[in-house]
């Protein structure tokens, strides 16, 4: 009885020992890859920060309006810091995933493969969002300036509405690219956009008839030759 127990314990120990001997080098290899990845990530962050500082990235972002949302989200932050952080975490995450492959577990391997196949979609989505944001800023500023100079009512509302619309469109496109509830997002966007246009059409068509008449009359009187009498700009 005692001998059987000892034999059983010995078998368990030898199996465990064999498994430890099998897995431990993989774990150590994974740890090494991860630590190397950590070093590379730190280096990548330093290189990105240095490069962007030389390229005056913060100033460029400030001009394009990209800095404002970063500052709103994280007071004291800067686009260079953000890009450096993104480089660090992307490299570290990649290193972490590579280190997992060292464990040679089939399930993990399949998940990693799927992750890497998904990555291009993430990059395209980020690109769509960034482009949408820049375009929204540009169009919003153009609308604001035009509305102020042409004496249109509520310039900030018009500019803000356009900015929201373009950002929404970019967001919907990014989600569709990611494959997150693609149909739902497209339909929701179409309904929202349609509703907005209908609301505007009703507001201007019915509610704003008098306002439009008044506005056009005012414009006509301003364009008349004697509106500024003696003043000539050129």
């Amino acid at each position, binding site marked *: 009885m005692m001998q059987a127990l000892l034999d059983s314990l010995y078998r368990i120990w030898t199996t465990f020992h064999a498994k430890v001997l099998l897995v431990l080098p993989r774990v150590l290899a994974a740890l090494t890859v991860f630590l190397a990845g950590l070093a590379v990530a730190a280096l990548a962050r330093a290189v990105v920060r240095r490069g962007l500082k030389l390229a005056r990235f913060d100033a460029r972002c400030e001009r394009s309006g990209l800095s404002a949302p970063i500052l709103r989200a994280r007071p004291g932050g800067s686009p260079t810091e953000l890009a450096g952080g993104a480089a660090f975490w992307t490299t570290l995450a990649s290193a972490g995933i590579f280190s997992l492959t060292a464990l040679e577990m089939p399930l993990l391997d399949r998940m990693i493969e799927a992750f890497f196949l998904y990555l291009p979609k993430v990059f395209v989505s980020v690109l769509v969002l960034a482009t949408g944001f820049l375009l929204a800023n540009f169009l919003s500023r153009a609308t604001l300036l035009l509305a102020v100079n042409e004496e249109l009512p509520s310039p900030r509302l018009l500019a803000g509405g356009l900015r929201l619309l373009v950002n929404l469109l970019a967001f919907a496109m990014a989600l569709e690219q990611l494959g997150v509830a693609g149909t739902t997002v497209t339909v929701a966007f179409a309904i929202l956009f349609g509703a907005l246009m209908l609301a505007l059409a009703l507001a201007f068509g019915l509610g704003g008839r008098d306002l439009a008449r008044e506005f056009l009359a005012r414009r006509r009187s301003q364009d008349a030759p004697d509106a500024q009498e003696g003043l000539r*700009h050129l």
Partner: protein
Amino acid sequence: MDADFPPGFRAQLDACGAADLVVGLPTFNHGGAIAEVVRSAQAGLAEAFPGVRAALVLADGGSTDGTPELAREASLGTCPLLLAPGPVLGQGAPARALRTVLAAALEVDARACAVLGADLRSLQPAWMDLLLSPILRDGLEFVAPRYLRRRYEGTINDFIVYPLTRSLYGLRLRHPLGGAFALSGRLVAHGLALGVPDLIRPGLETWVATTALAGSFRAGQASLGRRVQDDPDPPPALSDLLRQVVGTVFDLMEEHADVWSRIQGSADIPSFGPDLPLSKEPVRVDTARMVRAFRRGVRDLGGVWGAFLAPETLQDLGRVGVWDPSRFYVPPDLWVRVVHAFALAWRRRVMDRHHLLQALTPIYLGWVAAFVGETREGGTGAVEALEEKLCLCFEAHKPELCESWRTP
């Protein structure tokens, strides 16, 4: 050079031979005024320069109203009229026309070349003598016009172009945007070598005047009297005018920074013809709309202006915006700081340059309204005094501009 000439123009030039004087008329649908302009120019050349070989060059931008034919019919025949047709319309047509005139002047080895707006209905034969004699007889190389003005006429020139150009290049050239000017043969060659930029008319005039001033060509001005010119139809929007004129001034500031940053103060330049004070003709200007435009800017454009105006300038604009209309006042110092800040923002490309100059419109209107409010009750002397005060203010702030300009 030959490649710049429209088809058929080379043969006319060869037939004309050498000429001491060239008068250029860039045209585009100027059928209403061209006959009188051609007759006046030819009569003026014959009266003032008898025996001197001269030629008139009409560089057309593709008129559809028969402008070249009308010019040919109106020609007095006292000097050759060379017609340079412009088959293609478009953005670059005025610049192409100016290039053709200058290249023709160079080709015929002209000693002086005058360029006149073909819509100058007030053109007198005497203008030829006033514009060209300072070059032929006094050795000047650039002559700009001076006109008899009413108060508040040419406010972009009076409040931006003249004071800024004067403070930058140190010469008191009163009307860089005059619609007529004359150049020496050497300046013609210099301008062509630099390359005439693709601008439209007010911008081109600014370019010619600044090229002369920055290149240290001896400049003078001739008093021509009253200017009567056709208004463009449809009239350009104010923000477009500012973009064309002020954008060109800012572009040229970038180009000639090494020249103007070494200049301090300003000096008078030789003037020809009678002194032309402001006309005493009463002028009525409604400033309420301009004040409203300024206030709308203060209310809605703070975010845009905040990208490049100093915080104290922004605060000062805000304080002006809340004042009572009857007490609306923009100090000259504030206007100068604003113009300099826009020039710096242009250089640093703080935002799309078209947007930048659109953002100037409400402040410009505010300054004009304040200027009118300040000088309405006074005589013409009050207007001239405040204009001079503004110019001195631009000169006083120039060291700060130079300092900021050097900082990237």
